[in-house]
């Protein structure tokens, strides 16, 4: 899947470039899980920038949950940022808004990592 990764201020920033559904959820998970380990190694957090993701189905949400479980044995926090209104609604309806720290933008997520 289209995917970019960046390292800023010790934080790993990943940015999927397309919607996540049953066609690419496996790719999404296989890219996402190692990013938790990378963030742990760099002593930072994992920020998932959803600015280019129009929507996500249940299989994509499950991959996020797997990343969250992966982070439990580390000091890594997972922050999600840049969601459009559809993604926000999906997070609300699925109950995922209670499981993840949500930020308006990548910049606000990065700012939050500086204060924690």
């Amino acid at each position, binding site marked *: 899947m289209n995917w970019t990764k960046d390292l800023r201020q010790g934080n790993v920033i990943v940015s999927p470039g397309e919607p996540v559904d*049953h066609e690419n959820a496996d790719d999404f998970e296989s890219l996402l899980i190692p990013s938790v380990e990378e963030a742990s190694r760099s002593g930072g957090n994992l920020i998932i920038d959803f600015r280019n993701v129009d929507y996500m*189905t249940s299989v994509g949400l*499950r991959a996020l*949950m797997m990343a969250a479980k992966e982070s439990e044995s580390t000091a890594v926090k997972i922050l999600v940022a840049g969601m459009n209104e*559809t993604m926000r609604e999906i997070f609300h*309806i*699925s*109950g*995922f808004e209670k499981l993840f720290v949500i930020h308006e933008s990548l910049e606000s997520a990065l700012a939050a990592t500086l204060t924690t």
Partner: protein
Amino acid sequence: MRSSEVRDKLIGALKAANGRQFQSDAAIGNFVDNELDFPIRATYGGASSCVELDGASDEYLVCDMGSGLREFGLDTIRRSNEGRVKTYNVFMSHLHWDHIMGFPFFVPAFDPDVTIRIFGGHDTIEQALRRQQEEISFPVPFDFLKARFEFTTLVPGEVTEVAGCRVELIRQHHDNDSYGYRFSCNGQSVVYSTDSEHKLEDPLAIQQFVDFFRDADLVIMDTMYSLADAVSMKADWGHSSNVVAVDLCHRAQARRLVMFHHEPIFDDNTIRKIHLDTIRYEKLMRKESALEVLCAYDGLEVPL
């Protein structure tokens, strides 16, 4: 339902009426039916799983024998007295207590002119029903029942013809397994799939359900938990979510979804909110034709 909940509904209805005067009972009925939201004018109820498929045959077809079976049985006595054939074809998802608890109160079982055929993927159905009738649990032993019983174990992948319907089943992820059914009758298809957890990490298993639901006119599906709960603290509890139900039905291009097997701790307002959320999710995720999203309540009838 608790008295306090009835009181809340009455308060809600009177507030909505806002002092309005009605000229007739019909006018009041019209107001109730069309201007009050479901949790104010009605209740989802609390009966456990029991779903009738009506209209395919002169014989009765019913899925599961939860507490709803009692009311179903009494109503069929009336219908049988009007000439309906006294043969019941029952399809069991599984044998957990909430799916068999209606059987001891199923009055037609005491009628010697009744035939009860019970189908399922488990070969322990008769054992489960007999055990439930034993003295420690119930005063009437199984052998006292007068109806004629037939038990048939079905095999996933095989097609069975019952009462004019083509019946297929699929094994589902649930403690000690459960089975979903697809009924194809008179050119229409209905899927009954409850107590079924979908392991999203297994795309082949998911695809099997997409194929099983394919182009169904109606899918009655377990939507007990939120997706967040279903993949975290309630993983392996054997139930599904509204989000997965919509995703599966969209992929299968099913026509209608009935949200089923509500979480028992949810009140009417909570279930209504989940229903509205699910309608919204369907709209957000829709790529092709619309999926109508209904929400089960005791007594719901869905014409096909």
